[in-house]
């Protein structure tokens, strides 16, 4: 069974921006995403708005080809990194039936 080499982009940041990021990244070519609630601590976590009881931080994952990955990282870096608490990284993954997750 063949596996496709693709990129896994992981973005962790304050909840208030994650919905927008998810939307925007799909426009940049991601075929889908996986979102989860986390608790985070970082250099700017003071920035994390603690709306009482609400989850501070969320984690967003995209399985995408390299070109889309770069677009996503550029976008997040330019639009959100300055003013919002967030971090993003890239890693190599071998995806099952990966052809389904190539740019739309």
């Amino acid at each position, binding site marked *: 069974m063949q596996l496709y080499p693709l990129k896994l982009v992981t973005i962790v940041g304050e909840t*208030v*921006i994650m919905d927008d990021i998810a939307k925007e990244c799909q426009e940049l070519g991601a075929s889908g995403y996986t979102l989860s609630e986390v608790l985070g601590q970082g250099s700017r976590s003071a920035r994390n708005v*603690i709306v*009482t009881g609400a989850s501070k931080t969320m984690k967003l994952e995209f399985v995408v080809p390299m070109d889309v990955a770069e677009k996503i990282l550029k976008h997040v870096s*330019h639009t959100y990194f300055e*003013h919002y608490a967030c971090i993003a990284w890239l890693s190599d993954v071998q995806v099952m039936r990966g052809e389904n997750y190539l740019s739309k």
Partner: protein
Amino acid sequence: MLTIPLATLCGHVPALVAVFNAEQLGRIVESLERNLLTPIPLCFVLGLICTQIHGGIKIPKELYLTIAIFLLMSIGFIGGHELAHEYQEHGVSTIWKPALVTLVLGCLTPISAFLVLRYVGSMSIADSAGIAAHYGSTSAVTYAVANSFVEQTQHPANSFLPTLVTILECPGIAIALVLGAALSARERAAKAQATGVPVRESKLGEALYEVMTGQSILLMAGMLVIGFISTLFMDTKGFQPFYDFFQSKGMLFRGALCIFLLEMGLVAGERLGDLRKVGPFLVAFGIIMPLIHGFAGVYFGHLAGLNLGGCTVLGAIVASASYIAAPPAVRLTLPEANPTLSITAALAITFPFNIAIGIPIYFEMAKWVGAT
């Protein structure tokens, strides 16, 4: 347009001071005691203490959200129920004036807050506007506590106060955000040129819409309509269980408030550490601004014909600062604003102040302006 209210307010600052003469003070202290030594504020204190000794009390987020939903629904439903009676008796004659006054106050308080922050506190545009958005809106829990207070003092507020809470929720946030966005637009443009990074389109519209269709508004306004309609169309017997479930004098509402204030104490307590960060000006602002706004609420409420309880409660909600609707809206539209400042001021300074000391003071103010 904005000089008038300031004038009005300033005109009354002596009055404001006069409030604090000896005999008044005695009365305040007394009703302070009557207010403080009840379960609701004491639960807040318990929460505070717990954080200070790093204790283990944890209120699950979902419980907090559940109580918030229940309180908002109750306020709306019972509000609609009372409104229906009021309406059947007097039509809109008694309501339109207070509603108008509330709307005006909702438009002026963010501006007064902004001016003080920007020119007295000389804070950045973004921070001034961000904090102003919080103080221009209101806190439903402060309403609930104020309402319990006046009920316990046997001076229940006019039946339509919940309607006023709903009216007060949005305009303040909207005006402050528009103000902030407008004023900081130029700055950003300049910065954009310098750095070459394109300006990201403002999320103002989106944020405003989210505020106006937010949970607080929809639940309060929605249940208000539902309470109104079902009061008109149901027989009392069928209506009773719903009334018992939601009624603000009832055990569920009061008990839920206890647990909610315990959580508020935990949250405020965690933020006490930030008081150092925010500096003395903001601390003073978090106490004096509510007193001014509160007096405005009491005064104009009296002019609009509210009763003693009504003036007190209107004062309290005008004085209160939003910590639920405002933060995300501000975060989205004014990312340069530091949320620690606004949230600490609203949650760790103004909220406790109102709960513990403010409400009894507004009560005395209301008596003093002649409300009965």
